């Protein structure tokens, strides 16, 4: 397999976009109804070598989708319903482009699937957190990732013309899994009976009409001649719903302006977040700088100054840096998380967030942006060490970075004091994929310790933090340098695959959720299958798709 989609010589992938630059989606907002119409441009793939036929998608298509979902939350407080449809006749979406997958490296495929999975979850988060009802209007072929996209909506309407079907053809056709949550959502979300799901997932042509509804694969089948009207009526039914947390059409939209970061081989530089790459050491330092002034006096002022609001901007910049790290810097195995700034100011911003997140939709959106980016950090397959040193501001929201890290090192030097701090936000504003806060997950076996930690008010000194279990190690000034250097060098020497597996297992203790199943079960199995000769060997099903030969399988079950 060639690695055309991720060769280092290819232009790096950028994740910022805006509706004016969309190539693959028509984004329309009319009063309370928003529409995202998929119209993938065949020749506009992110990389050369494949055509995006039949509304099949690559990462570029999904970057636009993720952007549209984010903008819907921030820029369109009047919207109550989102209709997801297609602007190409007779097809809704044919799923991820097979030729793109076939020509991509393993690492790219894994990160592509992770990103698309995150985006599907963002669609569900949006519906749950903002009350925007999401409606998939399937007016044509809906296969594989196309159906998985529909599954991420609240409601699925299927045109019934005797022919249009929903399908998950990955197993019978490609020898891989529907990897964007399809299998999980079938049985966990839509509660499709497992035996029917088994039948459905092995019939390449899928299920249509009445049976699709009977099996709960879709919510409603509608004759073609009434389809558009029925979608319209269904959308209107949600148009009068009252906005959640004061979301109101009268509000001025908060437009997400471009961040304007600088990117090069040495790293990424944003206003508050930077990534400094040490290529020979395969290590990078991710620095988040705290706010330079106090929080705005009230939510209206926060909205008016959204472009410069530290709380929002730092979250967006961190998100951009994490995606850059995942896709453009595959050899960086270890990331050192640092913060710089005034912990008291971080605390003030946190208090602002905490005070208004329940009653102001915009402030709530800012909190949810942090929730998402912290999850993205949890799901980034790099070793993360937090380094807590003098001048840092690991407090409240930013202390979540230390909690997300695989290990944290805090300098214990009486000459150069350094502290961390917790805030109310650490209690549950930023749940992980398992539904628990990072502190809850950390103290899974010891709830008393959790309460004790949350009871610590004010700055927490190194010894106290170590005692409370909030940091891994607190070396003194004599040991610090060697201790940290050895840890980093040792980490960088271990097998990257073993580390990825180990970290993913240790980070998500506690209960299973739809999300943990998608990332931990579905994605993990998919990543295994993606490496197996039965999929990607010379005679594997994915390799031979579209070619004249038929796959030859190794029949031994593992």
């Amino acid at each position, binding site marked *: 397999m060639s690695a055309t989609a991720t060769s280092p010589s290819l232009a790096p992938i950028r994740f910022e976009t805006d509706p004016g630059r969309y190539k693959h989606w028509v984004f329309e907002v009319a009063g309370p109804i928003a529409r995202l119409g998929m119209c993938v441009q065949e020749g506009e793939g992110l990389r050369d070598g494949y055509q995006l036929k039949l509304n099949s998608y690559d990462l570029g298509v999904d970057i636009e989708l993720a952007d549209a979902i984010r903008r819907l939350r921030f820029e369109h407080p009047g919207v109550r319903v989102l209709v997801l449809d297609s602007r190409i006749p007779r097809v809704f979406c044919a799923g991820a482009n097979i030729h793109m997958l076939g020509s991509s490296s393993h690492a790219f495929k894994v990160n592509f699937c992770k990103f698309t999975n995150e985006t599907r979850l963002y669609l569900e988060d949006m519906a749950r957190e903002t009350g925007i009802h999401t409606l998939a209007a399937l007016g044509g072929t809906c296969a594989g990732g196309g159906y998985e996209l529909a599954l991420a909506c609240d409601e699925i309407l299927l045109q019934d013309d005797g022919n249009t079907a929903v399908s998950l053809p990955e197993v019978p056709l490609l020898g891989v899994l529907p990897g964007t949550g399809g299998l999980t959502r079938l049985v966990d979300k839509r509660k499709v009976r497992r035996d029917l799901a088994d039948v459905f997932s092995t019939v390449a042509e899928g299920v249509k009409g009445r049976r699709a509804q009977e099996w709960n694969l879709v919510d409603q089948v509608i004759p073609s001649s009434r389809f558009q009207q029925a979608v319209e009526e269904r959308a209107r039914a949600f148009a009068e719903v009252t906005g959640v947390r004061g979301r109101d059409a009268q509000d001025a939209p908060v437009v997400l302006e471009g961040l304007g970061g600088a990117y090069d081989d040495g790293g990424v530089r944003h206003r508050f977040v930077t990534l400094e790459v040490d290529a020979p050491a395969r290590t990078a330092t991710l620095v988040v700088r705290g706010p330079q002034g106090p929080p705005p006096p009230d939510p209206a002022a926060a909205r008016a100054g959204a472009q410069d609001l530290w709380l929002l901007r730092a979250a967006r910049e961190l998100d951009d840096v994490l995606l850059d790290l995942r896709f453009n810097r595959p050899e960086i195995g270890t990331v050192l998380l640092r913060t710089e700034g005034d912990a008291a100011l971080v605390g003030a911003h946190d208090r602002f967030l905490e005070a208004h997140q329940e009653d102001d939709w915009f402030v709530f959106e800012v909190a949810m942006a942090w929730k998402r980016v912290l999850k993205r950090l949890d799901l980034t397959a790099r070793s993360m060490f937090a380094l807590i040193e003098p001048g840092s501001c690991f407090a409240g929201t930013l202390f979540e970075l230390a909690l997300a890290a695989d290990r944290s090192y805090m300098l214990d030097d009486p000459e150069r004091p350094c502290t961390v701090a917790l805030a109310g936000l650490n209690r549950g504003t930023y749940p992980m994929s398992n539904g628990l806060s990072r502190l809850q997950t950390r103290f899974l076996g010891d709830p008393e310790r959790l309460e004790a930690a949350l009871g610590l008010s004010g700055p927490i000194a190194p010894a106290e933090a170590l005692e409370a279990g909030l940091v891994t190690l607190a070396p003194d000034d004599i040991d610090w340098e060697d201790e940290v250097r050895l840890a980093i060098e040792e980490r960088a020497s271990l097998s990257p695959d073993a580390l990825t597996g180990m970290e993913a297992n240790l980070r998500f203790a506690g209960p299973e959720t739809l999300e943990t199943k998608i990332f931990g079960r579905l994605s993990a199995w998919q990543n295994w299958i993606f490496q197996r000769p039965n999929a990607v060997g010379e005679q594997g099903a994915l390799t031979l798709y*579209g070619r004249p030969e038929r796959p030859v399988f190794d029949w031994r079950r593992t």
Partner: protein
Amino acid sequence: MAKVDLAARIPNNVDLSSDRRLQRALEDWQPRFFDWWMEMGPEGFQADQVYLRTAIDVGRDGWAHFDHVRMPEYRWGIFLAPAEEGRVIPCGDHFGQPAWQKVPGEYRNMLRRIIVTQADTEPASVEQQRLLGQTAPSLYDLRNLFQVNVEEGRHLWAMVYLLHTYFGRDGREEAEDLLRRRSGNPDSPRILGTFNEPVEDWLSFFMFTTFTDRDGKFQLLALAESGFDPLSRTTRFMLTEEAHHMFVGETGVGRVIERTADLMNELKTEDPDAIRAHGGIDLPTIQRYLNRWFSSSINLFGGEQSSNAAHYFAAGLKGRYKELERFEDHVALDAAYELPTVVGDEVRREQIPLRNAMNEILRDDYVGDCEFVVDRWNRTLEKAGRPERLTLPHRRFNRDMGIYSGRPFDPEGRPIAPEVWEAQRDRWLPTRADVDFVRSLMQPELRVGRIAGWIAPPRKGINGNDFAWEYVRFDKSSAGVKLGAEPSRTG
């Protein structure tokens, strides 16, 4: 219907009387078929006695048994061509292994899709043609129309037999859906586009039976090479009937051309308006109809480079026309096909894997066959001393699927600018005015021995009878209404 009755009423060579599975399926399906036939079959002639050929056996005498019957009483039968001893899978990865007598599980879904797609065209064409009886140019033509219709019905039975016998519950449901879809209905259209286009007049009907049914013939020829033996045997018998449909189409258009040539000679004119004024169909209009139906039918072969086609061939489900006689390499894995692709204004030759080109290979054979047909039509013009000739448009012309869709080509296959297409379109394809004119000619002529003015009578009648013969005996209660009194000629 009692089981004994069922087996006795349905002529068959599949041992229906001892096949409980098939009996059970047919007991449910047969009444639905009759409901469908009464609702969607030929409109207005169900009580009349039509001189029809019925297959009652696969032997030489058995498949051409003629009698006057009411169409709803037609004995739709189930026949397979006789089994060939020791038949092997003729192509693909399983080449040379014994042909399958049961559906191989790994190919079940693919086979079902192939059979359903073929089956869907059979009732579709009956639906498309259901109103044509009301404007038939002669009793002879009326009879031929109904012969085509009942045989399309039988072809549906043939395909449903496969679904019922080999595909369990799924097969029964697909068989029901075949009766549920309706040509041209936006809510439940037939599967393939051409089969949702109305066949509104007899020139279209003759073009349809020439070009669209000929696609059917070539699909059947490819399926006759299937490693799934029951499909091969079924389609081989269907081909004996399909030949008559080609005959109806080709001679039908030929007789229209003959009449037009005669008018041109009589009137000593080439002026289309003059021909029209005298009730004939001018040659440019015939050419435009030819262009429309050929270009629409040629889409039915599918994409030029197709992974489905490669899978079907690889699996041995669908071969090439005369696979064993015409080809030496039946695995076809290492060879390539040279596909002309158009980049900008330049035609390039691209090598694609042979298996992926199977649709195009079948299309090649089809185009060649169509060229012979047009040659024969031109001989009619030649014999009449006319210098004009009809031409088959290039396969790139007027395509709405495949690699040649999405940009215009002229009838010679040269890429042209969209403005040129817009300017020339009405010269190349039937206009609304053409269609209206042709329809204006469509007045029924149902008196024995008479024929409409826009078509010549056939050289001879059916089964040794004269043209002037009572091919359809009208039910007394409706006869008066049907016999037209428009000006017409005797044959």
